[in-house]
């Protein structure tokens, strides 16, 4: 199943940690946001293959903006 990872709050994109095509596990950090004077990691909930990274470092994201799109991995 595909996973849409969206911003939970207004923030600056500080670091993009993964790239398109990478395989991530549940709980892995995808990007790190900077908001409320904190570095806030954005994690994958289910894990999968990164199909799209919708932000670049330095971007400002609003609540609800798409950050990344993950494809589910085929069952082993």
């Amino acid at each position, binding site marked *: 199943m595909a996973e849409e990872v969206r911003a939970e709050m207004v923030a600056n994109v500080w670091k993009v940690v993964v790239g398109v095509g990478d395989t991530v596990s549940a709980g892995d950090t995808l990007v790190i946001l900077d908001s*409320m*004077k904190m*570095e*806030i*990691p954005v994690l994958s909930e289910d894990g999968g293959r990164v199909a799209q990274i919708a932000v670049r470092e330095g971007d400002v994201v609003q609540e609800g903006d798409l950050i990344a799109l993950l494809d589910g991995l085929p069952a082993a």
Partner: protein
Amino acid sequence: MSLSTLERIDPRIPSARLTQFFDPDSFEPFTTADSSGVLAGKGTVDGSPVVAFATDATIQGGAMGRDGCARIVHAIEAAVRLDAPVVGIWHSGGARLQEGVASLDGVGRVFAATVRASGRIPQLSLVLGAAAGGAAYGPALTDIVLMGPDAKIFVTGPDVVRTVTGEDCTADSLGGADVHARRSGVVAITCDSDEAAIERTRRLCALLADQGEIGPVRDRDLGSLLPESPRRAYDVRPLVAGVLDGEVLELHPKWAPNIVTALGRLGGRTVGVVANNPLRRGGCLDAASAEKASRFVRMCDSFGVPLIVLVDVPGYLPGVGQEWEGVVRRGAKLLYAFSECAVPRVTVVTRKAYGGAYIAMNASCLGATAVYAWPTAEVAVMGAEAAVGILHRRTLAEVPAQRRSTVLAELTAEHARLVGGIDRAVELGVVDAVVTPADTRAVIASTLAGAPAGRGSHGNIPL
């Protein structure tokens, strides 16, 4: 046909579900099974008395008639007399159409009985099938709602929605587990199987029915559960687990996840934990998280469950969205809930407590039993750098751009010295003592054990 044969035929019949819920051989039905659509009785959970009722999904889809509703009212009143928790196992399409307004009257009586018992005995709802209309509000009035994998909760089903408004939806998109766990906040716990949902309901019953006394606690160094960088956000749930003995029952894990509410035990005694979660929304308080915490605090208070409040909060989430969502009105609930609390409640500031959110997280001014802080914690109106940005706006604007960061650092250090660190907060008495992460469990336990037992005298309105 014997009962056991019937159970094998249809696991939805109330006697099957109630037998599965109670300790083995402990279920005593109040009546024989009949066509009323409800079976109720008493039994034990981990040895503690509990009352439970179940709607009968095999008769008219579990629809609630006058007689069935009277059984539920009787069960709730019996639980109050026994001073025992009452559990409702729901699978019902709502009021019986054939009975007309008589069934509506019955359903309303269930609501009123639930409210009369609210805050006096724990009321739990386990929804295992569709729960529509009256069968949705019945659970919603209780303290904790759990959902199995086939459960749906809605006021009106997808067919009616389609007929009346033309909106196209499925039972799942309307009232499935994911909707209620993440968006509506109706449901506190969702489970992948009916068995798991029944087991969780039993665990909650055991925690609330047999709260125990605080015994000795083993020390654990909780400091390693925080990241080294004070700027880095982290998941607070391992810290919550570290404070508690073992079992952690988190309520509403996916709704308003920037605050964690959980039941567990400390030194063997049932306690409630409220903790900011910096990983989600930076741990900010907002409209939904304040409301979630308020209801939890009032529930614990009404059942005499002491509270532990773990604070790492940068403030209230700023923005138009929050103001429009009523962060002022809904945030006020948390101030009210803590101020009203009669149960012992201990606050631990692990990293920071800023501004209005400092007050809302059970500050000493709201009547906290004690407020402790870890040695590096900050308690302030805002972070020093942000404060300097406001207090010295003009000075900073006047210095040349290349020197600005140096001046900002100097002014920040000076400001920090003037307002004082955690020592100043201790001097003022707003923090009772600085405790190390390694001593924290023991200090919380001895504070709670030494505080006079209290219990709020109020109901638990679904805030």
